[in-house]
């Protein structure tokens, strides 16, 4: 039976109607004093500028160019965050007790939260939907190599795979290896190479 809900009636003007509906709602709410013109922008700004994988990318890029910073990042991730120009509170909140583990030619790290979906959101942003998936959470512990190869990461048998299980106490993330051929790149260019997946250990960094 077709839906009678007007939101699902498609016409050529569907876009216009949706845009008008949202605009109408927003302006009514502003008229009523429920929200101000800035409310929506500040919520969106939070996702765009404060919390996102760009924070993790900046930390990794700096670690790649500055061995002393790398040592501090590996020793105390939250203290290293405080050295950056991140927004206030970025090393606290749910990002407290973040820890970073380093990929090397000998060891590949991958993160999971087997209990739920603990995730270092100040550095990696919103978790992807599959991070919460029970199949991923169970399989990555049992057969990490197979899961990695399904993500497109083929590892030599000599490489040890370590799985880090995040919890409310420690939220793990990964310092990927700097790829070959990036010797002349600036810190900002290096940061541009990083993806959340690389910092979860389910991808490698590509130039």
């Amino acid at each position: 039976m077709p839906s009678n809900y007007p939101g699902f009636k498609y016409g050529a003007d569907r876009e216009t109607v949706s845009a008008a509906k949202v605009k109408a709602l927003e302006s009514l709410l502003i008229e009523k004093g429920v929200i101000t013109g800035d409310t929506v922008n500040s919520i969106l700004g939070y996702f765009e500028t404060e919390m996102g994988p760009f924070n993790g990318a900046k930390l990794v890029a700096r670690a790649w160019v500055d061995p002393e910073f790398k040592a501090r990042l590996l020793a105390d991730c939250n203290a290293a965050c405080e050295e950056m120009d991140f927004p206030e509170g970025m090393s606290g909140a749910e990002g407290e007790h973040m820890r970073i583990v380093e990929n090397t030619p000998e060891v590949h790290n991958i993160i999971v939260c087997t209990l739920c979906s603990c995730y270092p959101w100040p550095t990696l942003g919103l978790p992807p939907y599959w991070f919460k998936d029970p199949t991923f959470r169970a399989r990555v512990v049992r057969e990490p190599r197979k899961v990695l190869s399904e993500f497109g990461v083929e590892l030599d048998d000599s490489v040890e795979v370590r799985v880090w299980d995040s919890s409310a106490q420690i939220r793990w993330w990964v310092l990927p290896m700097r790829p070959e051929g990036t010797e002349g790149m600036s810190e900002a260019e290096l940061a541009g190479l990083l993806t959340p997946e690389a910092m979860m250990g389910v991808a490698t960094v590509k130039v």
Partner: protein
Amino acid sequence: MFTKFEHFAATSLMGDPEEAPPRKDGHLHFDRDWEKMAFGVAIALSKQGYYEWEDFRQTLMATIKEWENTHELNDPEWDYYQCWVAALEKVAVASGVVKAGELETQMAQLLNCKNSET
């Protein structure tokens, strides 16, 4: 555990690929301006206590389910934020923060204004 309502609201949607907002490279991804505004308004209203976020979530899921029940699953007309707007309208009206009639009047004004300009 969550200190930021925005983060709580967004991550609570991340369990199910059908329910989760589109993302690109770890960021929320919006194709059109009204999607952004609808996303922000839904969070703002809940943050201010007009409804529980869980109510919005359940309404969104029911709206998506309703769409799936009335369309082929590969229907190219599928649009996540169309469902979002439909759910937002339902919870906003149900909470009493706006009345259905007011919304229609306001919308008609906006649409007429637009038409008379062209």
